[in-house]
């Protein structure tokens, strides 16, 4: 081995001190006072999250909390899946713990997790300088772009289960994929207009990169301010990775999972059917329509919003229809499918069929939600 080659010793990334962040015309970086003490050390996992949140909040994003139903990706949160539908502009950002049962490795693999954390940004419509803003966000978390190799490489995203696809890139930073960047074109089988820009950061990868650790479990999650004691990712999450790997691969009862899937699917489908029967434009007779709503959803004739004239009442009925509830049920199905898959309980032939069933739910919900939004828009104008 030639002596001119550098060893793979401890190499620390140079982290730019916050004060020297460039202030480009289109990027107004806001530096909080708390960051002044972090100059010599890379961001902890939680500081990385703070920085991204602050960065995007400063650019007009609403910060949402992670969704509290199991999802495989930030895209599946209703804050993306549903909000990208329809014409209403949205700027929203949130962290989303994302569960992928088949990716579990009992906490033994330093690079793979059953549950990883995505930081998801949705910009609808995307600003024309979205790439530049994105690059500024990397600077904001301490990456001096002039010291790194960054490439936008073609990577189009598609989720057959969600009836969704988009065009975009994986953003490569020194050979590491740190972000999936997608221009959403279709969602729930519906063409989008305007489209949305979706930026998905893999927080564990990014943190491991910033901190230059080889194992995700060695990532410093937090640092005790007084003592400087470091709390690692492993301390916080290793147990969960191990136990959920055992559950997902060994303990989950296949028969029960199938049963849960059937139950959730049936309830979701029933809601979609009820919505379509009540509000689908095909149905002409208002009397019949009203009756059905009453059958399924409205148990009390005095429900708020049900009064007023016929049209207003109808609009209110549509607005209060629990499409969002149906979507939660659809997410449940998706997660159960992933669990069954991890258990090896779905044969290749079955697989296609189950995906099609869940897709039907997602598409049904998306259509209902879009219809509801149109109704809202019509009544507010």
């Amino acid at each position, binding site marked *: 081995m030639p002596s001119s080659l550098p060893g793979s010793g401890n190499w620390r990334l140079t982290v730019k001190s916050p004060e020297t962040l460039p202030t480009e015309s289109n990027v107004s970086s806001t530096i909080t006072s708390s960051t002044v003490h972090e100059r010599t050390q890379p961001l902890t996992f939680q500081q990385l999250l703070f920085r991204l949140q602050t960065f995007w909040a400063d650019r007009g994003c609403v910060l949402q909390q992670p969704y509290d139903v199991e999802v495989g990706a930030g895209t599946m949160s209703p804050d993306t899946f549903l909000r990208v539908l329809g014409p209403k502009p949205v700027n929203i950002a949130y962290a989303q713990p994302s569960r992928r049962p088949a990716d579990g490795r009992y906490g033994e693999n330093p690079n793979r997790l059953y549950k990883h954390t995505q930081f998801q940004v949705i910009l609808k419509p995307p600003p024309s300088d979205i790439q530049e803003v994105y690059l500024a966000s990397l600077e904001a978390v301490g990456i001096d772009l002039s010291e790194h190799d960054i490439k936008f490489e073609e990577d189009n995203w598609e989720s057959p289960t969600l009836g969704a696809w988009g065009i975009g890139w994986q953003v490569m930073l020194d*050979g590491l994929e740190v972000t999936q960047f997608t221009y959403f074109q279709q969602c729930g089988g519906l063409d989008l207009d305007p489209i949305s820009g979706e930026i998905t950061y893999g927080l564990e990868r990014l943190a491991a990169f910033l901190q230059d650790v080889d194992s995700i479990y060695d990532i410093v999650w937090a640092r005790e301010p007084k003592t400087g004691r470091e709390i690692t990712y492993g301390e916080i999450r290793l147990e969960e990775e191990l136990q959920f790997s055992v559950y997902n691969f060994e303990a989950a009862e296949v028969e029960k999972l199938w049963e849960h899937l059937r139950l959730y699917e049936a309830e979701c489908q029933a809601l979609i059917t009820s919505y379509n029967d009540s509000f689908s434009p095909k149905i002409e007779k208002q009397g019949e329509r009203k009756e059905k709503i009453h059958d399924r959803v409205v148990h009390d004739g005095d429900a708020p919003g049900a009064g007023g004239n016929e049209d207003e009442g109808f609009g209110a009925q549509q607005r209060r229809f629990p499409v969002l509830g149906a979507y939660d049920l659809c997410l449940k199905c998706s997660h159960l499918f992933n669990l069954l898959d991890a258990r090896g309980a779905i044969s290749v032939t079955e697989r296609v069929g189950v995906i099609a069933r869940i897709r039907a739910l997602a598409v049904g919900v998306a259509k209902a939600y879009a219809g509801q939004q149109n109704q809202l828009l019509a009544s507010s104008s």
Partner: protein
Amino acid sequence: MPDFLFEIGLEEIPARMIAPAQMELARRVQDVLTRERLLEAGSEVHSYSTPRRLAVLVKSVAIAQSDTEELLTGPSWNIAFKNGEPTPAAQAFAKKAGVELSALQKITTPKGEYVSATAQRKGRSATEILAEQLPKELAALYWPKNMYWRPGKPERFVRPVKWLVALLDHAIVPVEFAGVRAANITYGHRILHGSESVTIEHAADYLGQLEAAHVTADVELRRHRIRKALDAAVRSVAGARWREDHPLVDTVTHLTEWPAVILGSFEPEYLTLPEEVLVMVMRDHQKYFAVEDASHKLAPYFLTVLNTQPEEHGDEIIRHGNERVLRARFNDARFFWDVDQKIPLTARVEMLKSVTFQKDLGSYHDKTAATLRIAEKLAGILSEKGARIDTGALLEATKLAKADLTAELVKEFTELQGIVGGLYARAQGLGESVAQAIYWQYSPAGIEDPIPPTAEGQLLGIADRFQTISAMFGIGLEPTGSKDPFGLRRAANGIVKILAESGLPLTLWDLTEAAPRGPATAEKIPAFFRERVEFYLRDVRGFAYDVVNAVLAAGHNDIRDAIARAEALSAVRGADDFIAIAAAFKRMKNILRQAQEKNLLQSEPNYDDSSLTDLAEINLRTRAGQVGKDFHILQRTHKYREALELIATLRPDVDQFFDKVMVMVEDEAIRNARLALILRVQRAFSSIADFSEIVTA
């Protein structure tokens, strides 16, 4: 005459799409300029591209079209002028032509006298034409995958359009596309130059100004720099070389605006993983070049092409980052390798029951059983023909061939199917010829790839592909037009290549014998393979299309024989005597065809030579008989070239026959005898190739 510069700035274009788009844009600009008479013949059209731009620079564009005159013909003279006075018809025509009434002229045509006028067409300016035409050309540009980005979805394009530059020397051409209006402003390298704009003062300054903004827009120059930088970077390792990889050089050329190369290393312990896996991870997942030592063995280094110029010592950071990623990838691969060893290939065969081959054809377990039956029969046919083959190893390899589809490593690196199976077979001690056969089963994947090196591997490759083809044809899933979703053409090309380039004494007949019979195998498959043999002879072997037609008309069952015949025919076809003979055969074929169309040709003609009376015809009959005997001996011993040269010696006899003898005479007996004679000649000498297919003119 001014230079014309046209640049379209985009968010990063997918690397694979850049070269074709660059070429197409240059062609479209050139076509517009040519069509509009703005381009001298032979004017230089240059084109450039980076991930963020496509550009065309045309030297010497006319500033405007030249004015032209056009002679227009109007109504007939008698209608236009009554008693010497212009009628409304004359006035309308003059107005349309844009001339005074007094300028109308009388012309005389074969149909009579008409009014004519010489109209002046004012040439339009290049600016006007380009501003009008280029948006249409941009909109028509082909992209394999398009997107919408602006609200209201006014247009689709590969990625959002960021800027346009359109300059005739220093004057802006107001081209507008996708809501962007052309100016003289472009942008440099994202990081090295930053978001500051670059003003192009003059079209001719384009390359230089971009270079100053850290963008090398000339693709070939960039490619050259990358190759040089790869050479330079690998030099620090004694005796090492980077592994040539043209597709990868191409990809990284289209991923960079300002390339640089860094050498990185990995821990030598990873070299215990198979080279195929390491190279796949480096090349396909990381776009790294592999490095080999002086003995062509993989060395623990890699080369990565950057799209930046690291500051002094800055490459340490980037190298370190890339090494980290590669280590993680290699760890993954090792993890999968280790996990896979827990279930041996032999135990994985059973797991194939849950892997679907095709929904109507069942699982890969079913497919394996079907392939096994074909392989067994082929082995039988071969041993009858006296070929040496390890039937045990062939059948074992066939049984295990698809087992690696259940391996984690293959799920992760699907491109390594077969290769992984072969490596596992070796690691699990299943015997070298079994391992080799499994390893090579998908080779050749393309026409450039080598065939499997062992007879067992070749046979497995044939049996596997032929099973797929006959099963798919059996359920009506044959390729149609440009659609071939199951890659059956490629599979058949693979079979043809193996049959052509291996020593296996197998014919296409033997294959159809070995496969289950059905209506499809009986009719469609031979026709399908004929096309594939034709493709192989023409596109892979480079034989002229008429030679291929001539040879295949005499049969395509034995591919190596068809190649030998095509080589012989190619060798003799230029000789004068042969050209004449080929022409004579064509004449015979025409006569026979006409006779058949008139129902004058008996299906089994009576070779009644007693009606042959002319000296020329008797001579031809005698000579054909003598030559025919020798011809058949030569053909049987595969001396095709000598056989064809022998036929050429018939030339004087054939020429004399056609000079002196008229075939289609009234007398039925004589006519039949003569038709029978040429039919006999034609049949006797068309068994190597049908010469009438040869284009002689």
